[in-house]
């Protein structure tokens, strides 16, 4: 899926959260959104899937303008918020089945895949447990599994590395994301952990004060981090120590 954002602006009251942001995401990339708190990363991600609508500009998927009622476009992507939307009384497997059905998939064709992912994410013994009984990390995994089963063209995740997933879950997620990117999927996620960027990103998108400051490869990002005063202002000295 080819994704283009054109002059995207969004204000909340008198605060301009996004200011004329334009960028293009190519197929098969893992893109990380970086920026301090309140930079506008979250708002940008919300605009991606229509949770909020921009005041100006638009998001184009395969050159088609995105609208919230374009269910066909929305079924080609998934969005994982920091706290996934789950029903506490619903069992893990039923939740997975329900999300598959919302994407118009027949659950009978995905039985093996679901079982594989359950085992992969160490949830095999929890398939019949209610979501409300799981820990935060387990709940995040349970919410992630149906999306990974579907494997849509665009993945959007908010802070997956601060989701409470254990190392096994994080490793499984990174492996699956890499595989998906190699198959032409686009993965967009936000994080504030610079260590992650080095190991798990193809492109880095730096946002601050609603403005796009950098959209570049990982190597170039680290170059800019060393030389740019703006980057120093955004990330501070520790960032240079990390690199």
């Amino acid at each position, binding site marked *: 899926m080819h994704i283009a954002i054109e002059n995207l602006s969004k204000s909340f009251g008198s605060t301009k959260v996004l200011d004329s942001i334009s960028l293009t995401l190519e197929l098969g990339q893992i893109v990380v959104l970086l920026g301090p708190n309140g930079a506008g990363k979250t708002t940008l991600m919300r605009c991606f899937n229509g949770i909020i609508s921009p005041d100006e500009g638009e998001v184009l998927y395969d050159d088609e303008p995105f609208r919230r009622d374009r269910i066909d476009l929305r079924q080609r992507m998934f969005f994982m918020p920091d706290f996934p*939307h789950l029903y506490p009384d619903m069992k893990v497997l039923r939740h997975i089945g329900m999300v598959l059905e919302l994407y118009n998939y027949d659950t009978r064709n995905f*039985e093996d895949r679901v079982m594989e992912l359950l085992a992969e994410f160490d949830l095999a013994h929890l398939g019949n447990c209610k979501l409300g009984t799981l820990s935060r990390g387990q709940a995040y995994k349970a919410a992630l599994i149906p999306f990974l089963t579907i494997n849509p063209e665009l993945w959007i995740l908010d802070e997956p590395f601060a989701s409470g997933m254990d190392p096994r879950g994080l490793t499984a997620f990174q492996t699956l994301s890499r595989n998906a990117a190699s198959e032409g999927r686009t993965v967009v996620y936000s994080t504030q952990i610079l260590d992650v960027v080095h190991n798990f990103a193809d492109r880095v998108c730096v946002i601050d004060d609603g403005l796009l400051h950098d959209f570049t490869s990982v190597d170039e990002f680290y170059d800019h981090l060393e030389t740019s005063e703006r980057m120093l202002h955004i990330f501070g000295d520790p960032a240079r120590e990390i690199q």
Partner: protein
Amino acid sequence: MIWVDSPQAKSIRSRYQAMLQASPSLREEYQSAMRARRPSLLMMFLTVTTIALGLPMVFAVVPSFLIFLLNEHGGPVSVFAVAGFLTTMGTLAFPETLLAQLQRSRTVAVFSHLPASDRDLARTVWNQTFAYSLCGLYFILLFFGAVAYLNELSISGWAVSLLLAMLQWSFVVTAGTWLAVSFPRFRFGQLGSLLLIAGMSTFYFNRPILLEIAVWCTVLNPGGWPGLAVWHGYMNENTLVWIAIIPSSLLLLLSPILRERLLKHFAIQEFDTSSREKPLAVFDGRFLLADQNRLHIYHVENLMPEELEEFESLDEVRDLNGLSVLHRPAWSQCGWIEQTVWKYLKPRERTIAGFLTGDTPRWTFWWKMASGALLVILILYGLEFLKFPLNQFINKMAPALCFYLVIISSMYDRWQGLRTTPCLGSYASHFASYPIGVREISRVMFKISFIKSLFYALLIFPFVVYMMGPMGFLIAVGAVGASQLIMSWQIAYGISRGFSLPALKWSNCWMVLVVLLIPFGTMFGLAFSLAGFNPGLHISLLAAGVTLVFASTLGVWRFFEWLVASGRLDLATNQLNVIQKQFDYYQVILDKSELRMQRVRYSQKKHGRIWGYLRLVFGMKP
């Protein structure tokens, strides 16, 4: 062979005839079971003789004599007291007969050798018991007909008597089925025998004060409440007599519902043993886990076997979890409203409905609650417990309030998919992160609300009939209109509740205000129109007002759809506001009450109905 040739038995046998012909071993087993349970010639002779001699005595001579005596000494009230007493006896006899048939009847014993489903057998048994209960209807008709005859009542009096008889009989069938379903191990026969002895002794030893004790006997005897209430109202020329239509209709409605519940839950195998104890389930760690989950155990990690760490193959994972949960449940285990909704939704709509309700709709449960509450209130009202000695207005308002109670209960929905939940530092509608269109949501909600409103109309209709009596056609029309108004309003309310109004762009606010104000304006218009004195104008205005309100509600609904679908409304609030916090607070309270209910259910399942509840009351471990 009398029993085998009954219509019910024939029906079952014909259904499995082809199977019997195809399988010699099955035929042999069935025929040997039939031979083993064939009644002896002596038993058949005794049965025929008893019927020939006993029937006239039981059905004509004794009841007529009893009625004559009662009317002579205590008047109609004593007849009602005995009729109520017999109703209670019948109510106990019904579950006793039903359970005895299920456990020991020849039909069940023979047909359990066929691959007949438990449901089929239970249906046959219930039909047989129902047929026996027609004898009860005969006696009740006899009693009330005698009262009408002895008091030389007019045609309307005879009609009331007939109504009362039907009411008492439906009470027997409904309450009897409910008792059988709820307390399958209770000894109804023993209790009934004790009550019969106590009742006969009371009547015999207190013959001189029959009238006095008859009143108390009726008050203490639930089976006699409806009869006495309606009779009292009729004899005092109180038009509230028509109130009896409601409980009788409800009871008649409840009867098949309870029957369905009986068919669903009763497994004949449970009754194969001579004792009434349920067999112990085979212990299995997985079953334990599944069962505990069903009973809402919260500390699941405590139930996890420690050795379950790694798995050899996917089959092992599959065996552990089972795959049935992954696939959509068909709501076949839910109530009849859910099943009806399921039937009329398309596949995609079923998915949306499952999402919106979290696959746990409880519409039938709330409908039953509303019916039960209405029934109790009406019976109490009929018995004058709720008639305030203030003025006529309040007395008229009481049933109207009951009526609105039902309407309001129809609005209670758990649209979990529309709840707002934390998302990306703020709150967003639950459905926002899934590929669901708001038009899909509102269409499904509309369909569900419409079907639900039809079921609630079953409760409202008798009320309207009642209101048409004392208050006139106008009020009845107004009541129907008001109920329609509230029910249709809830659709728009339900949908709009899930969206973020604080994030609404100011440029669109005026449109929202205009559309929202239309229904309110219409309601005010209706109120003013009632101040007029032209009945024809009233009806026209009411009809026009209801139509307008319904149309404007649909307008609001479509308007919200358009706002959301076109991106003019954000699905996430920018910041938490006071209203949102308040809503969350109430949500926490609701969740806690649900948690309490789950604890009660779990405790009752573990320790029995009464003891399980009492344990919680006294703060013991559930």
